[in-house]
């Protein structure tokens, strides 16, 4: 037996995933950072350009495919999940990423997002949440907080926002994670986990719109407050946060609520702190619903519990299908009669 040494693989870099198109987001837009993180992720996972596809809807975020040197499809408003589903049904072997925003994904495309998540089509969904409509110049979005003043709500919005991660969990998503545009190492880590998960991976990325909603996430992304306002959930590890990692989440068993406690105060010990379990949907929902300032904003993989994918199940049915396989035989099933010449 001879040993064949494979030629050294050409090292791909993030730059290899830059397209020849000039990136046209507003200067300072969080999308630049996300683009960079995605290109880095593609390089680090060794993605093949020819088998990677970015599918998007309409909005600032949905311009994304033009800036990645893979295959890309910039579809219509809200419908990227449907186009991506059709693509995966035709070619399950492709690695499909879907890019959407809070308006595209949760307003006009809310229905499609619901169904792609419950079907568990194997793709990564990146939802850029900036709590505003950017491309149409600043109207409030379905994730805008009550009271958001915008051209269409000059006196402040009155309708309650939707929480994207809770929406995804409610729709039956098997992978739900969160990160922040500018937190590069964390974002890349989450994207790699999303890619690794077979099934629909839903990633909510808090993204800053410098023009229409600047600083909307400062309360937990601003460097000075971040350590005390962010909790990075990690599977199997205690849910602790704070500069000194001495604050944590404890479950009030009587009311099924979480509370923030400080280790070493009031008799609280490390043993009182909840340990993160990615496979626990209830815990994921509790974590996803927390907001500063009372609670930390929980980032990281909230939930990951893989299940069979839609396209695998569909193609398994196709392989198992019986019946006439030939058109001539098919057309002659049932009652026929022959007229002699």
């Amino acid at each position, binding site marked *: 037996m001879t040993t064949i040494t494979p030629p050294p693989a050409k090292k791909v870099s993030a730059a290899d995933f830059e*397209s020849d*198109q000039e990136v046209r987001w507003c200067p300072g837009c969080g999308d630049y950072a996300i683009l960079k993180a995605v290109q880095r992720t593609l390089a680090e996972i060794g993605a093949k*350009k*020819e*088998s990677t*596809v970015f*599918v998007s809807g*309409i909005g600032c975020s949905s311009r994304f*495919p*033009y800036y990645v*040197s*893979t*295959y*890309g*499809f*910039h*579809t*219509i408003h809200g*419908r990227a*999940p*449907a*186009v*991506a*589903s*059709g*693509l*995966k*049904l*035709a*070619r399950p*072997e*492709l690695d499909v990423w879907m890019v959407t925003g809070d308006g595209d994904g949760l307003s006009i495309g809310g*229905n*499609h997002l*619901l*169904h792609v998540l419950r079907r568990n089509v194997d793709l990564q969904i990146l939802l850029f949440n900036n709590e505003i409509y950017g491309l149409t110049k600043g109207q409030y979005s379905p994730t805008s907080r009550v009271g958001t003043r915008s051209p269409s709500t000059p006196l402040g919005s009155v309708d309650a926002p939707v929480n994207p991660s809770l929406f995804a969990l409610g729709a039956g998503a098997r992978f739900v994670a969160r990160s922040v545009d500018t937190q590069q190492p964390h974002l890349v880590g989450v994207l790699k986990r999303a890619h690794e998960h077979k099934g629909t991976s839903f990633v909510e990325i808090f993204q800053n719109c410098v023009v229409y909603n600047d600083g909307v996430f400062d309360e937990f992304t601003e460097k000075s407050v971040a350590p005390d306002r962010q909790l990075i959930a990690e599977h199997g590890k205690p849910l602790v946060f704070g500069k000194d990692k001495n604050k944590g989440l404890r479950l009030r068993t009587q009311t099924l609520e979480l509370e923030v406690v400080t280790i070493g105060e009031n008799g609280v010990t490390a043993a009182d702190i909840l340990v993160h379990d990615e496979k626990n949907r209830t815990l994921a929902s509790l974590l996803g619903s927390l907001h500063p300032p009372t609670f930390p904003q929980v980032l990281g993989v909230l939930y990951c519990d893989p299940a069979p994918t839609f396209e695998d199940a*569909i*193609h398994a*049915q*196709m392989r198992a*299908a*019986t*019946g*006439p*396989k*030939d*058109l*001539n035989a*098919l*057309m*002659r099933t*049932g*009652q*026929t*009669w*022959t*007229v*002699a*010449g």
Partner: protein
Amino acid sequence: MATPTATPPAHGPARQHRESVVIRFAGDSGDGMQITGSEFMVETALAGNDLATFPDYPAEIRAPAGTTFGVSAFQIHFGSNEVLTVGDELDALVAMNPAALKVNLKDLRKGGILVCDISTFNSRNLVKAGYQQSPLDDGTLTGYHVLKIDVTKLNAEAVKPFDLSAKEAVRCRNMWTLGLMLWMFGRERQHSIEWLERKFAKKPEIAKANVAALNAGHAFGETAELAAPAFTVAPAQVAAGTYRTVTGTEALVWGVLAGVKAAALDRVVLASYPITPSSPVLHTLANLKQFGVVTFQAEDEIAAMCAAIGASYGGALGITTSSGPGIALKTEAIGLAVMTELPVLIINNQRGGPSTGLPTKTEQSDLYQAVYGRNGDTPLPVLATATPSDCFEVAIEAVRIATKYMTPVMLLTDGYLANASEPWLIPDATKLPSFPVSFRTDPEGFQPYLRDPQTLGRVWAVPGTPGLEHRIGGIEKDYNTGHISYDPENHQRMTDTRAAKVDGIAADIPLQDVALGEDSGDLAVVGWGSTYGPIHQAVRALRAEGHRVSQIHIRYLKPFPRNLGDLLKRFRRIVVPEMNNGQLVTVLRAEYLVPAERLAKVTGKPFKISELVAALRGRLEK
């Protein structure tokens, strides 16, 4: 395999000969009228007659028993000559209850045969049907051959030996009626017996009881000296070969499979959302997964169209099916398919509109929607099917055009054609046309909007192909590079190119023929879609009277065949009968500046030959 025969039974009275007969079986939704009609159809096909059938289901899923809106009917027209319609008037009507009589009597010709199950004509059912008194006794039925038969009682006697529950016994009533009608028109009943034995293979008692009921109905005809004549209808002259009956839905689905095979595509994705009357296409294809068919019941109409686009982008044939309101929802996505120049087959089983309209009734009022109904200048080819079996050829043709020209194609059929059936000379699938697609694989000189200089079709570059990575989308693209372009001249050029591509298809489709008559004369009767049959017979009747009338039936509605304008101009008058308020007529007028006249009918029912003859004669005499 049975050979055609119309030999009347050895016993029984002398039979009258008829060239063609129209029968309608009508009863409550639960009376099994569709099954009765289908079995009569198969026995008739086996007898060698040409035929056409149409089922008429109630709109309600479970209408209250005995009501007029719960009446279900099945009509069959069969004859010894070419049969192209389901017939204007009924020669025989079977009414299983008063409601069925109430709804259908108006269609029975005077002197026609009426079979009533008198046991159902009790006061309760009469009230439900809206009768003040029994029509059996009050003179309502004067002028018809009325056979008042206690079918329920006779059936109960026939099935007595089989130990059925009362409910099961009553359910054999339709087979008793079928037996009688098979006898009356000189049909065999062997197929029906074998079919019952297969259908109830696991319940032999039920099978035996149904066969006994069938035989009893048949024997009743032979022995009871009925107050109505019996008939023979000689076999039609038909080409040699193997036949079957086919509905528009079956022919369409098989045509799609044949088209996919001809295009040498190994993947096809049908994405649809349930809608009347289009869902049977989804159901039928869902059972044909062994042909490499992925069926996807999408969350809505928009998702269905978008998934079909995604599939085509991935190198499969993407298909979506719907009806008018669903097509309206897909409209924006259809524009995306036009813009990205991807082959998608869009099948519209038209129904009565606007809005929810008449979901279970037929209409051809989506022509404007198909030809014009999108934002922007968004041309796409439109084809229409004329008969149930024509759906096969048109589906193949739609796949050919979609893949050759890289464009979505709209295929218009309708609720009538989807459900109607007719005998079909089964084609040999190995001898069908072939038009294999070629995916782009060469990176050398590749641009996503490179075109075939002849067809102007864009290259089909499928994700997964190394070196062809590119981005497409709904924003206008540069003619050369395929990048986003807001350049004014480029938009003009791309708009012109999209139009020229679709217009150019005219050079690749057959010239418009004349379906009946000469290529000039006093009157051209121009139609499209399922009006083919009634127009054909009406034109034939007028020609028999000596009028210089011709039938022109258009399959290709966008673009039109290149000789159509010249052909139309060779007629003194042009009349366009349509089951809409006048759509093709204005398209023809706009396209050719010809004085085409409107002949519209929007009742949810097909044209009758007689009403067309009268209307066209009126135009000739004007």
